């Protein structure tokens, strides 16, 4: 008899989600969208669209435990639609040379943000996401691991790698 399984299911059933706390999820969904769309304005629209779809399909979500994967999936679908609709350029083609050709050394303060973003957008997608996630929202490695559905050690590796690449990128720019 498998009461075992049934009782294991109890917390999941209890935790049925009735309400989506947008404030709680906003930053991480935003980081996901931005890492896919490479644009802050598009990310804002996509995040809003993600929550819109999430609220409408909330009854399909059976348990709070699945909410991470569920939200990430919706965000991904929204972004894919965005890319199809607007033909947003993908990050892998982010053109650093073009940026370097712009008048250098005159970065005003608000341009510093654009400048760093450009380098972040040039990172591979998983590293891009973890950097945005880390700086947008104060999450521990464990929390990030849970949201991204990866091991804690992977979080550490990705952050280390992302920072290393950013450092090298900025360094190479100085030398040019």
């Amino acid at each position, binding site marked *: *008899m*498998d*009461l*075992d399984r*049934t*009782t*294991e*299911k*109890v917390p999941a*059933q*209890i935790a*049925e989600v*009735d*309400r*989506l706390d*947008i*404030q709680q999820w*906003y*930053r991480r969904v*935003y980081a996901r969208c931005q890492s896919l769309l490479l644009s802050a304005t598009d990310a*804002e629209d996509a*995040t*809003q669209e993600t*929550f*819109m779809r999430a*609220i*409408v399909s*909330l*009854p399909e979500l059976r348990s709070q435990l699945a909410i991470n994967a569920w939200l990430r999936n919706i965000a991904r679908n929204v972004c894919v639609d965005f890319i199809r609709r607007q033909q947003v350029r993908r990050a892998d083609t982010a053109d650093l040379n073009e940026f370097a050709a712009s008048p250098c050394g005159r970065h005003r303060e608000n341009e*510093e*943000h654009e*400048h*760093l*973003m450009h380098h*972040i957008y040039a990172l591979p997608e998983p590293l891009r996401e973890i*950097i*945005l996630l*880390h*700086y*947008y929202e104060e999450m*521990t*490695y464990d929390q990030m691991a849970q949201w991204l559905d990866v091991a804690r050690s992977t979080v*550490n590796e990705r*952050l*280390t790698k992302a*920072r290393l690449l*950013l*450092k090298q990128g*900025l360094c190479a720019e100085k030398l040019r």
Partner: protein
Amino acid sequence: MISCDTCQSQLSAMLDGELPPNETEGIQDHLATCPACQREWDELRELDCKLVQAVQLPVTVPAKCEASLAGSIREGKVRLERTHLGLSSRERLARRWSLAILALTAACLTAIFLIPGSKWSEDDRHATDHNDVAGPVIVGRLVRATGRVEQILPDRAEWQTVSVDDMLGIYPGARLRTGDGALCELETPDRSVVRLDAAAEVVVDRSNQIQLVRGRIWCRASTESNIELRLNSPEAWTPDTQLATFTCPSSSEIQCSTSNNQFSCCSNTNNQATVELAVGNFKCAVAPGESVSIDASQAVQRDTSQELINKIWQLPLLAIDAQSDSELMQVLRPLLASIGRTKAMHINEERLRQLGPLGAIPLLTYATVESAPEQIELRRRAVWLAADLADQRSVSLLNKLARDPDAQIAQKAVEKLSSLARQ
């Protein structure tokens, strides 16, 4: 002594304060002696400062998003099925029902229109359509179960498993059975509830017409309708061998069982009219709060039913969803109450023990769900009793109780966990 590679691979985690203190110490010792790694560390901190300043999301953005979503919802741009407001379990169930009915209606219509050479006339189509919409084709849904439940459809030969998540429910005329240790609860479209004990078998003819073939069931008729119950002899089951019939009046509870040509029926509610139990031409009245057994030779045995004790077998079922459904509390509180340490308490305890390891689950669930501070004694008693019964299946609940704010409960849970671990 750590190498430069190890040191540099840990710098990022150290920056984020995610390294354990002893490792942090090791890295700091290394940095003090290695200029190359120290330079890496300084550069990393510099980069982090830049990122902290540049990569920021304004605090107001999430609030803006929320306000804008609320606006869209108000203007009707997003159509909600009241979901964001929070559905009660009742509403959720009602929604499932309507979906199931919709799915069935759609399936029937598709079949009628698409099957080539269908001889259905235009009128017949309307008639079917009308029937499906007016009266649901399904007679019940499985709401909760502690194990395997199977049904066999009237025109089929093999048993199929029914699960709580099934979209389509129980069909008219279906035979339903529970396995060993598997209790289940059905709900009919008009909100009557039927619970099956382990190893029980019923035929659900209509939503308010049930035949008990074997074992024990409990039912609560909805406020709108009665439930007609027919008890069959388990030995020679054919559709015509029903031996006893009675009606469970609306809004009342009845428990009945059949075994070895003996039928028993107890009327559990005190505020309802007498139930009439008919065996062939013989009729006998069951008063509220009374339990009546009749055997094939029509010998009648009467007993004053003890409603609570009669419900003890349902406890494992009530432990599922206990958080949203207060029935477990309602049943267990008086059972665990000391009533001046009288005989009743020992009888109740004895009956709870008879549930065996399965009984530990509702008791421990009760202890985790009960939040009233004045019930601390009952919680302790529940945990003490459960500790005698619990087996591996209760480990997750015991783990929860091991962190209980009440020291005695936490200690008892820890003791039981360690004794289970030794086994």
